[in-house]
């Protein structure tokens, strides 16, 4: 059976599933329950200076729901912990003592002054916690006060604070990045320059969840007015994956351990983050939606998948997809696919036809011999994948690649071997043919 045990910047845990710094990790009661349920580690809810911040007493969450009320995206205007620093530190000490085999990192956010960091770091170290995570990501409330994403958006501040932390503490330093930047590499490289032991990402995405059309206020409405919040959950996973992959393949960041966060709800999500470079993952929304028990599927799902694939430990596949994450210009422009509809699975809903007919390439029939019949017209099909995406039946439409040398009915030309944009004749900046084929 595959071994899930994990060591992240020297912090050991029985599995790579940590709870992200958020309400599930706000107090000993929750964290104890999480550990009982099997979570490998937690990042304690972000601590700040006393006096504690205050949260709104109105609604602090909003959600994007599917028609069947399945939660797709989640938004919050909660701030960092609203409990006294001392209470948190006492509980952290006790929890670490009770659960020595689990990872316990502490998230921190204090003003951008060396004094503030110098004060809090020894207090955290004294609890016996395994590491610290710097919250440079919270995009609401705290950022108005010059903290959270206000720091994460300025690479110089990131580097400076990381340096203070490394100078004033022995604990490993994880830097949690905000996605609310144009180029995620800037803060990631800054963290690296400051001496960070690891980078975690993403924190939440700045967002307005919806507008209450009766009250004419952004939702959730707090007494008739709304502020933007931080968006997370399944909807942000693609954003997180891309930012993660960007750092993972960046030569300057090479070797920095990465902790993947953002929309992870299943073992498969976790495996995807790991394949794209994350050594472990952190979860918030899925736990808030389903409770701590969700970790069970993450654990045995990942083990079963690893067993099926022959991976004995997590590091064996961490980063395996990174070399295949390339810029568009490296894609094989000669690679040719055609959609194939499995008529035995087709339920004849016609969604593929109308999608292709109205909005794409008119490459799917609607009838044959006077009967509803949906079939791909190879001479029109550009292999775009739209039909696959709109078909309600799994595996009913698949893409079949044409081997090199076979004729493509659309172009009338045989399929040629690998060539990308850099050497394409239509490219005004054409370079010499590059022979870099994808890594298999």
């Amino acid at each position, binding site marked *: 059976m595959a071994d899930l045990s994990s060591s992240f910047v020297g912090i050991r845990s029985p599995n790579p599933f940590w709870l992200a710094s958020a309400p599930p990790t706000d107090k000993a009661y929750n964290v104890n329950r999480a550990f009982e349920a099997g979570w490998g580690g937690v990042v304690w809810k972000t601590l700040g200076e006393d006096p504690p911040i205050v949260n709104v007493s109105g609604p602090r969450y909003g959600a994007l729901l*599917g*028609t*069947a*009320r399945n939660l797709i995206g989640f938004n919050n205007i909660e701030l960092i912990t609203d409990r006294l620093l001392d209470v948190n530190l006492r509980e952290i000490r006790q929890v670490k003592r009770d659960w020595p085999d689990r990872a316990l990192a502490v998230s921190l956010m204090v003003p951008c002054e060396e004094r503030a960091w110098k004060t809090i770091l020894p207090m955290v170290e004294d609890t016996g916690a395994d590491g610290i995570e710097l919250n440079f990501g919270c995009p609401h409330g705290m950022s108005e006060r010059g903290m959270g994403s206000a720091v994460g958006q300025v690479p110089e501040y990131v580097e400076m604070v990381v340096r203070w932390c490394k100078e004033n503490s022995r604990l490993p330093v994880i830097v949690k990045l905000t996605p609310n930047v144009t180029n995620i590499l800037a803060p990631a490289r800054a963290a690296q320059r400051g001496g960070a032991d690891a980078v975690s990402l993403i924190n939440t995405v700045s967002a307005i969840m919806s507008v209450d059309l009766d009250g004419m206020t952004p939702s959730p409405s707090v007494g008739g007015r709304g502020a933007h919040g931080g968006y997370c959950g399944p909807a942000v996973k693609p954003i997180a994956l891309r930012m993660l992959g960007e750092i993972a393949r960046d030569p300057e960041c090479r070797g920095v351990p990465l902790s993947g966060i953002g929309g992870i709800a299943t073992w498969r999500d976790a495996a995807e983050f790991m394949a794209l470079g994350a050594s472990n993952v952190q979860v918030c929304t899925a736990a808030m939606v389903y409770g701590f028990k969700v970790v069970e599927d993450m654990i045995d799902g990942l083990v079963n998948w690893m067993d099926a694939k022959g991976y004995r430990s997590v590091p064996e596949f961490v980063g395996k997809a990174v070399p295949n994450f390339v810029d568009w210009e490296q894609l094989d422009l000669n690679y040719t696919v055609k959609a194939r509809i499995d008529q035995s699975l087709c*339920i*004849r*809903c*016609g*969604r593929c*036809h*109308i999608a292709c007919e109205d909005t794409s390439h008119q490459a799917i029939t*609607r009838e044959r011999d006077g009967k*509803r019949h949906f079939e791909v017209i190879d001479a029109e099909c550009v292999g775009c994948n739209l039909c696959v995406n709109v078909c*309600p*039946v799994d595996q009913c439409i698949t893409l079949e690649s044409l081997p090199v040398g076979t004729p493509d009915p659309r172009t009338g030309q045989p399929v040629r071997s690998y060539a990308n944009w850099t050497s394409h004749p239509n490219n005004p900046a054409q370079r010499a043919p590059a022979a870099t084929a994808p890594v298999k």
Partner: protein
Amino acid sequence: MASADSTKTSGIRANRLPEEVYARNFADAHPALTPNQALVESDRCLFCYDAPCVQACPTGIDIPSFIRKIATGNIKGSAQDILSENACGALCARVCPTEVLCEGSCVRNLQEHKPVAIGALQRYATDWVFDRGVQVFQRAADTGRRIAVVGGGPAGLSCAHRLATLGHSVTVFEAHDKLGGLNEYGVAAYKVAGGIAQREVDYLLEVGGIEVRFGQRLGKELSLAALRRDFDAVFLGIGLGAVNALGIDEPAIDGVYDAIDYIADLRQSQALATLPVGRSVVVIGGGMTAIDIATQIRRLGAEDVTIVYRRGPEQMGASTKEQDWAQTNGVRIKHWARPTGLLSDGGHLAGVAFEYTRLDDQQRLAGTGERFELPADMLFKAIGQVLVRDSLDGQVGLLDTASGRIAVDAERRTSLPGVWAGGDCVAGGRDLTVEAVQDGKLAALSIDRALRPAQASGVRHG
């Protein structure tokens, strides 16, 4: 009422069940969807291209569109989509055999053997506007044209409503003292609980331009010739009246009932416990009426109920789902047998004699010679109805009724100029409410075209 008679007492009795059981047995058989159920179910619709369900709906409701509007919270728009094609959409949502219509062609059947619950969703949307008093129709400016609609069943109502919406003035002549036709007097009580038939009538009349005259029977108080003279057009939606005969000796004994009459009494009854109910009941027939009387008489406390049909399950007019429903209610269905005589005891029905049947070489029904008897203190004839041609008075010779029903063309024009017809009284249909509604709509559109040939017409929504 005092203590109820048990179901085990022989003979015809009222009061077989404890009082509270009647209400339960005749409540809504398939309760309404909750808002959350409607949302979840609406999400199952795939919004198919050129959707097969639309083609399978006799009234051509844009089903994917009305379902999507439920999902988006645009319930008024949803009801508008439904009612603009099918004025009796609320009734049809309850009584249509959806398993052979829209739901039968839902592509979800191929995927997961479970269609989208189109009927239930249609009910959800139409109930929504009824419950809130939201009117989706607005009558067009008066055209000055006057049309007589004879018969206030689904066909007549649909025709009258569409004509009125288009701005014409309609007079409905109805023999009974209520509108709704078989919706009010025929359809099984538990399909249309809560007085929905009359609520629908009220909703339709609300649009204005429709005058209703009760107690007016064509062939008695009315004549077709006079109507043709006094109105710009006439629509006949008189349904079927007379009940087929069993074709055997029917001695004058008690215990023999006409299912349609009994159901009409049941539907109008304010005290179900007072209805006469036998202990052993035989129903002869294979259509919806047979299923409905058998199921309802069981629910009124009959101990044994057997439907005897002369052909097999596939030939029954009632769908498989209807047959299953009767069987779930404890009704036994015997196929391939026909009645040969009634047994009596002191002027009361005592049993029914049958002969087994089969198809001969020419696929004709033939007796096998093998016989059996079923004890019965109550017998229902549910073997179909026929058009009462007498009601068409002197004009019957001019109207083509050679097939037994009124012949119409694709626009529901009869052979008599200025006279349209639709519903059960015309030839070629399946005797379904929804088809009557479509007939009425098509006739109204045809009448509208005939009365103002050059102008375009269209329904306006409010």
